[in-house]
């Protein structure tokens, strides 16, 4: 009888473990019983990490309300000047051809934040811009 039992059990086991049967199972379960939506009082919203993030956001909003960021606008540039940097060498060689050196444009800008200077320098096909802002009182 053991042989009969084994044959029978293997016959059903092969069928139940068939990939087609497993695929049909997943398709049916997803179609008929989709995952339940996460409730507002569920584990996600009640998670300590979420609560901490929520408190942090609220604190930040409170701080910004008390001490708002001064959104200074950049006024029209009061003056634009152009200077040629002949050389970075402290003792420049007057005989050197100035046209061979990369030129740096220096622009002085007026700003409510304070004195602002923009440096622009071209390297082959790359332009690098550095903006210095000197806050008022600094």
């Amino acid at each position, binding site marked *: 009888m053991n042989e*009969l039992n084994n*044959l029978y059990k293997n016959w059903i086991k092969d069928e139940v473990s068939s990939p087609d049967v497993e695929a049909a199972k997943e398709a049916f379960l997803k179609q008929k019983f989709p*995952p339940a939506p996460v409730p507002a009082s569920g584990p996600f919203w009640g998670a300590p990490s979420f609560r901490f993030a929520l408190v942090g956001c609220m604190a930040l909003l409170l701080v910004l309300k008390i001490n708002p960021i001064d959104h200074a606008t950049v006024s029209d540039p009061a003056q634009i000047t152009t200077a040629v940097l002949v050389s970075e060498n402290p003792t420049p060689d007057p005989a050197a051809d100035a046209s061979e050196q990369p030129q740096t444009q220096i622009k002085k800008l007026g700003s409510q934040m304070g004195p602002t200077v923009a440096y622009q320098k071209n390297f082959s096909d790359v332009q690098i811009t550095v903006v210095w802002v000197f806050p008022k009182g600094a």
Partner: protein
Amino acid sequence: MRDDPDLGLVQQAQSGNQAAFSALFRKYYNMVYAVAYGVLNRREESQDVTQDVLIKVHRDIQKFKGDSKFKTWLYRVTVNASIDSVRRRKEAEPIENVGDFLASNTIDPRRAASQAELKERMQEALQKISAEHRAVLVLREWENLSYEEIADTLQLEAGTVMSRIFYARKALAKALGIEYHEVES
């Protein structure tokens, strides 16, 4: 209420919790399919019956009163649905006498050309047995239910269950050319 490991999920499902339904059905889908296949022996039909059973349970979950374990109730619904499906497609008449089994259908499984051929013979042999016999066979041999549990599930007398299992095993062994000696394991 009996000690039912599914009690919590069932109560949540009865409250309308779809996640509980999903968990229950994911847990028992294979079981329902195995029982259906044991009775029907046809994949597509078994899949249809499995889905019908789960949809019915989903719809009628309130009818489960806890008089038995949920799993027992599920067995009952599955067997009934499977037997109904068999009746609808006009099965072969159940054998009354094992001796009527055609000897020409028997083969020596040790000489079977392939496992696939043996599976085919198993399927053919099972088709010679009534749906009611196949039901008790799958509950006993695959689900490992006791005679009492099968009797409780199918609402039969224990003696009827034993008798059906005896004849089902004997018929199957005859069809497969296996020597059969009734030794309860």
